[in-house]
C-alpha cells in the first residue's frame, strides 16, 4: 500500500514542518516562562542574545554544537541501519579515554597536527569498540541495542570513575582528572573565524574540532549515500528482508554500522577533552550523547539537517545559561524543560501536524494531480 502522506514537496518536508514544530515548542516554552512569572519575550531576546550576541556567545554556541554534530551523526548512521543507538553517551565517554591515551603518550613528542589524527583514531577506535559488544549481541543473539547500549552507558560511567580515580590520576592530586596535556596536544582555537565577523572572543573554547565536525558530516553523507557500504546499510534499515534477499550479510552490516556509530560518538570527546579542558575529567560528556538523539531526529538523519539542529541545541545550551543568569526565576532545570519541549515537538510529535499539512497541500495540488492514477486505498 502506498503511503498517503509521502508526496509532500521537499521544502515542506524538510523546512516547513520542522519550523512549525519548533514554533509550537517555543510557544509552549513561553507559557512555562509565563507561569514562573517572567516575560517570555524578554526571555527569548536574552536567549538569542546570549547565544549570538557576542563573540564568546557565538563561540560557546558553536563549541556545544560541535559535540552535538558528532553525537547526532552517530545516532543518524545507526538510524539508517534501523538501529537505535542510545549509547552515544557511554561511547563518547570511552572515546575520551582514547583521546587521553593518545595525548598522554605523545603530547611531548609530536606537534598538534600529528597528535590530532592520532587522538581522532584513538577516540573513534575506543568508541567503536565500546559499541562492539552491543552490536554483536544484537546481530548474533537478537538482544535489543536499546537495552544493551543504555546498560553500557552505566558500565562506561563506572569504568571511567575507576580508571580516573585509581589509574590515571597523578599521585597526590586531589582533583579526579589526568595530568594536563602538554603543549603538543593543544588544539588551535578558531578565534580568527569569530573575529572575521567583527566580534572578539576571550573565553570560549571554540577550536579546530568544529571544522573536523563539518568535514566528518560531509564524509558521513558520502558514506551513506555514495558508497556500497552505505547502500547496504540503508537497505538493511529500510527492509531486513530485502537485505537478506539481496545477499547482504546482515550480521556484518549491523556490527560495522554500530562500530561506525560508536566511533563517531567517540570522536565527540576530542572537542571537550583535547580542545577545551586539555585533560581528561569526570563526566565531560554532560548529556551530549542523548542530545544527539534529538539532533538526529530533528535533522532527519541527514548531515545537512544535523548541523543546523546541532547549532540550535548549542544555542539552547549557551543562550539558556545566559538566560538563567539574568532571570533568577528561570533555573537550569527550566532550561532542561525548554530543551525537552523542543525534543518533544521536533522528535516525538514530529507527525502531529503532518496530516493536516499534507491535507492542505493535497487540496492545493488537487487540480494538478487529476491525471495521476490513484495509488491508495487498496488493502493489499
Amino acid at each position, binding site marked *: 500500500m502506498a503511503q498517503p502522506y509521502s508526496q509532500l514537496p521537499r521544502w515542506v518536508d524538510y523546512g516547513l514542518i520542522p519550523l512549525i514544530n519548533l514554533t509550537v515548542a517555543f510557544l509552549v516554552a513561553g507559557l512555562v516562562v509565563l507561569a514562573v512569572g517572567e516575560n517570555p519575550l524578554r526571555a527569548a531576546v536574552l536567549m538569542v542574545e546570549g547565544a549570538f550576541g557576542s563573540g564568546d556567545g557565538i563561540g560557546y554556541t558553536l563549541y556545544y554544537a560541535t559535540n552535538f554534530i558528532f553525537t547526532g551523526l552517530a545516532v543518524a548512521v545507526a538510524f539508517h541501519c534501523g538501529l537505535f543507538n542510545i549509547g552515544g553517551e557511554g561511547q563518547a565517554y570511552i572515546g575520551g579515554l582514547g583521546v587521553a591515551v593518545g595525548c598522554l603518550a605523545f603530547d611531548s613528542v609530536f606537534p598538534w597536527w600529528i597528535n590530532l589524527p592520532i587522538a581522532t583514531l584513538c577516540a573513534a577506535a575506543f568508541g567503536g569498540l565500546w559499541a562492539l559488544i552491543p552490536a554483536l549481541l544484537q546481530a548474533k543473539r537478537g538482544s535489543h541495542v536499546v537495552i544493551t547500549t543504555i546498560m553500557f552507558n552505566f558500565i562506561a560511567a563506572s569504568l571511567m570513575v575507576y580508571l580516573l580515580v585509581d589509574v590515571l590520576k597523578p599521585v597526590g592530586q586531589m582533583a579526579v582528572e589526568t595530568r594536563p596535556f602538554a603543549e603538543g596536544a593543544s588544539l588551535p582555537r578558531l578565534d580568527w573565524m569569530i573575529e572575521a565577523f567583527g566580534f572578539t572572543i576571550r573565553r570560549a573554547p571554540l577550536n579546530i574540532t568544529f571544522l573536523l565536525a563539518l568535514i566528518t558530516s560531509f564524509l558521513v553523507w558520502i558514506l551513506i549515500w555514495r558508497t556500497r557500504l552505505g547502500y547496504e546499510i540503508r537497505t538493511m534499515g529500510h527492509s531486513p528482508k*530485502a537485505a537478506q534477499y539481496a*545477499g547482504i550479510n546482515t550480521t556484518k552490516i549491523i556490527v560495522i554500522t554500530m562500530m561506525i556509530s560508536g566511533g563517531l560518538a567517540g570522536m565527540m570527546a576530542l572537542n571537550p577533552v583535547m580542545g577545551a579542558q586539555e585533560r581528561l575529567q569526570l563526566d565531560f560528556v554532560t548529556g551530549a550523547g542523548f542530545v544527539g538523539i534529538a539532533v538526529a531526529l530533528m535533522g532527519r538523519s541527514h548531515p545537512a539537517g544535523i548541523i543546523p539542529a546541532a547549532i540550535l541545541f548549542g544555542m539552547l545550551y549557551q543562550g539558556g545559561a545566559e538566560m538563567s543568569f539574568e532571570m533568577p526565576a528561570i533555573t537550569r532545570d527550566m532550561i532542561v524543560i525548554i530543551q525537552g519541549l523542543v525534543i518533544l515537538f521536533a522528535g516525538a510529535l514530529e507527525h502531529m501536524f503532518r*496530516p493536516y499539512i499534507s491535507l492542505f497541500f*493535497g487540496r492545493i*495540488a488537487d487540480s494538478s494531480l487529476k491525471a495521476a492514477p490513484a495509488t491508495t486505498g487498496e488493502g*493489499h
Partner: protein
Amino acid sequence: MAEYAIELAGINKSFGPVKANRDINLQIKQGTIHGIIGENGAGKSTLMSILYGFYQADSGEISIDGKNTKINSSNDAIALGIGMVHQHFMLVENFTVLENIILGAEDSQLLSGSISKARSELVRLEKEYELNVDPDAIIEELPVGIQQRVEILKALYRGAEILILDEPTGVLTPSEADHLFRILEQLKEQGKTIVLITHKLREIMAVTDEVSVMRQGTIVATRKTDKTSVEELAELMVGRRVLLRVEKGDPNPGEIKLAVQNLTVRDSRGIDMVKNVSLDVRAGEIVGIAGVAGNGQSQLIEAITGIRPAKEGRVLLDGEPIDVTGQADPAMLRKRGLAHVPEDRHHMGLVLAFEEAENSILGYHDDPSYLSGPMLNIEAIRNDARDKIEKYDIRPANCRLKTANFSGGNQQKIVLAREMETDPSVLIVGQPTRGVDVGAIEFIHKRIIEMRDAGKAVLLVSVELDEIRSLADRIIVMFDGKVVGECGPEATEGELGLLMAGVTNDKIEAAE
C-alpha cells in the same frame, strides 16, 4: 422495502493528495449479487471501507434501504444490517466457532447465557442457509473455506441483510470457491443483498447479477452481467483492449538447469513446510508450481534461492551442487546465474523508500560496473536504470522517483527488469502478477515467455490457477509441503483443483 439496498451519491474520499474515490454514484438492488471489479488501486476497498464505517467520506450521501444515513463506525454499519467478510479473516484462532460468533455481541458479563442462545441461533442459521459448521470446533483446526463460512455466519448472526465480501476467493481452492458461490446464491434466494469485490473476471461472470467497474477511483460502468463479456469488462477496467490469452509456441526443453532433490525445509516455528520435494526444470521450459497459498511454495523458493537454509536435500544449479543446507547465499547464487523475482515485492524485492535507480541494482550492487572502488558509480547506475525504464516501459520514466510512488505493475516491472536483464540461466518467479494491473499482466506474461524462448529455465510459483495454466509447460501441484501431482497445461481446472485440495490420483482411484 425500498428498491435499492444501497444507494451511494457523489462519494468523494482523498488521502492527502491522492483521490481514492471520485464522485461515486452506485445503486445496488435488494436481493441481488452485485460485483465490484477493478484493478488494484482502483478504489474498491476504500469504497467498501466507507460503507462499513472504517473511513468517512469527504462528501456524498449514503442511503441504506432507502433511508439516508451517516455511517461513522462499523457499529453503525452493523446496526444498519451491513456485514463484512474481510479478505484476511478477523477470527480469534484459538477460540471455538461459537466463541468467535458471539465475540463483540455478548449480552452480559457472564457468557453462559449468550453461548446457549447463540448455539440455538447458529443451528437455525446453519439449517436455513445450509452452512454446516461444528459450533465447538477450534478455528485454527478448520480449513480456510470453513473459516470463511464462520465469518459469514458471524455477519448473519448480527442480523446482516447486506453482506460485503472483499476478495473472498483469494485463499480458496477452486472447489471451495464454487461452494462459496453456491452459498451466496442461497443467501440471495433468502433475500439478502450481496456485494462481491474481486479482481477476477471469471468470478464476476459466474455469480453476479450486476457488475460495476472501477478505474482510478471512479465507477466507469455498471452492466447487467448477462449482457456483458469478460473482454468488455477487462477493457473497461484497463481503459484499452487487453489480450487475455497468452500466445506462446511449443516449448523446446533442453538440459536440466535446476534440479531439486528430496528437499525438506523447516520454518522458524520448527514445522516442516516443505517435505521431501524433488523437481527438475530444463532450459527452455516453464515449470509452474500450483497450490493454495501457504502449502510450502514460499519456503521452497526461499530455500532454492539461499534465503532460508534447508533442513536436508540437494539442489543442483547447472549440474553443480548448491550448499542449500548451509552456506548458500543469494549473492553467490546470483553470480552463478540464478535470478529471483520474489513473491513479496514490497518487503523483499524492493526497498520502497529507495529511488527507482537504487532498486534497479538491489542484489547486484556489488557488480563492478556499478562501482568505482568502495563508491557507488551513481552515473552508471542511473544510466543503466534509464535503459531498463525504456526497455520495460516503466512509468513514470523517472529513475530518481521514490519506488513507493510507482503503481504495483510498474514496481513489478522494476524487479523484472533487474532480474531478467542479467541474462540468468535459471529464473525463479513468485506471484508475478499479484497486485498488478491487467495492462501490466499482459506485458509480464509476455516477458516470461520470451525468457523461456531464449532458453532460460523458468520456475513459476503462483496461486492464480489461470496464470499457471496459461504460462506453464508443466504443472506441479503442492499440497501440505509435498508434491502431490504433475500434469500438463491441458489439465482441467477440476483436475488441478482436486490436486490442490490434496486429493491425489491414487486417492481418486481408491475411491473409485
